[in-house]
């Protein structure tokens, strides 16, 4: 398997505001890409364009060799998506919700129960599986969001802040899960947490003011900080990169 995601020169304007201004990157199978950037840099907008929730003003998305614009249904089959804030229907139980997603994803009825049992085990949802989503803690809600994204075992995963709101133990579990899945899938995850990049990502893409300002491995990212910096080197490199870009943009 080769290239699974290709974001080609994506632009998005909301009225006069240019949220994303020419973002291009590619992700292959076996890669976990950390999508970084300050708040308002265009991370969520870019992810929304990758999944087709927003239409780019200009540019194209190719998912699993399918042009999203031409074959939206085919392209959508090939990815799982955890949107910002991990939304889910609050009035459904976890099981009902996963069943709904599984059916909508076209998983054959005979397999649905087994698939649900599998994700429930992998994401540790067993204790809440018959609980109404409304009553779940933030951490469990986030995990339900991850469960619905992987229930059909897609080759591509797009996750907007998958570890946000989780406690350190849960963060560790989710990172382990992502690392395991990352060996075969193409994964894009957005995060604010730079250690997460070191912990799970094979590559980092940094965007600022709607443009890609860095695309490389975590080690390369680290090398951007001068040798004199000994602590929080990634923080330093991130600040240097993103503040420059924001100044140029303004």
């Amino acid at each position, binding site marked *: 398997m080769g290239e699974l995601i290709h974001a080609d020169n994506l632009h998005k304007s*909301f009225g006069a505001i240019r949220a994303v201004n020419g973002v291009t990157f590619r992700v292959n199978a076996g890669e976990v890409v950390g999508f970084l950037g300050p708040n308002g840099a265009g991370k969520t907008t870019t992810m*929304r364009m990758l*999944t*087709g*929730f*927003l*239409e780019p*003003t200009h540019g194209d998305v190719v998912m699993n060799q399918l042009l999203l614009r031409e074959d939206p*249904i*085919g392209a*959508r*089959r090939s990815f799982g*998506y955890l*949107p*910002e*804030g991990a*939304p*889910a*229907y*609050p*009035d*459904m139980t976890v099981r*009902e919700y996963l069943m*709904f*997603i599984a*059916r*909508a*994803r*076209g998983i054959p*009825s005979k397999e649905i129960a087994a698939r649900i049992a599998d994700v429930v085990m992998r994401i540790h949802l067993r204790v809440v599986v018959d609980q109404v989503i409304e009553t779940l803690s933030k951490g469990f809600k986030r995990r339900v969001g991850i469960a*619905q994204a992987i229930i059909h075992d897609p080759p591509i995963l797009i996750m907007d802040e998958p570890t946000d709101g989780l406690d350190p133990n849960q963060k560790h579990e989710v990172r382990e899960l992502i690392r395991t899945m990352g060996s075969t899938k193409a994964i894009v995850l957005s995060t604010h947490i730079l250690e997460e990049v070191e912990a799970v990502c094979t590559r980092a893409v940094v965007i600022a003011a709607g443009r890609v300002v860095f695309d490389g491995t975590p080690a390369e990212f680290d090398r951007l900080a001068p040798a004199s910096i000994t602590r929080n080197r990634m923080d330093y490199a991130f600040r240097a990169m993103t503040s420059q870009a924001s100044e140029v943009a303004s």
Partner: protein
Amino acid sequence: MSPWRTVFQREFKAYFATPLAAVFLVVFLFLAGILTFAMGGFFERGQADLRSLFQFVPWLFLFLAPSLSMRLWAEERRLGTIEILTTLPIPLSHAVWGKFLAAWLFSLLALALTMPLWVTVSWLGDPDHGAIVAGYVASAMVSGIFLAIGGCVSATTKNQVIAFVVTVVVCFLAMLSGFPLVLDFFRGWLAAGAVDAIASVSVLSHFNSLMRGVVELRDIVYFASAICGLLIATHFMIDWRKSA
């Protein structure tokens, strides 16, 4: 399972997951009862028919259908679940139809619960069953068109209260557009052809014509095409928000 059925099932069950279903059914039946017996003169008219019920159905649905339709899309937007729904591999048209049919079936359930009245008139006298069937068909059509309007309005906002209020106003205008009061207002500044067109889209005149007991193709075509048109408009509205 066909994608529209998946959406339809979820949506239909969602009405029963909250007190909405119970509140709606109780209020609908309570008001239908009061209007039929107190204002419609069900017994006083001395006729074995259900006109005293049906004449109030459009007015009941005017306020109650928007309470069913307001959540259809506005709630998805508020919760953010629209991002999940519209990125699942199901055609948007299936989502639009599934949601509409769930709301419609629910309103038909409310209508079906008035059927004891039918049993009562059959027991008291010898009603024209064809006319009663026509009355139910007309009522179902009115609820369908109001829910389609409501779904379309709901697709434009994430605020359910706004969706409710705007839907009531639009349904009210659609209902009364054949009335002299409305037509006189337009007659001042629109061509005669345009005024006739407005008159012909009146929900109430098509409802009354159906209720007279003659199920005419013209009226059915009117309701069916209006509902389809509104669902297509809903589809476009959601698509448009994607590229806006």
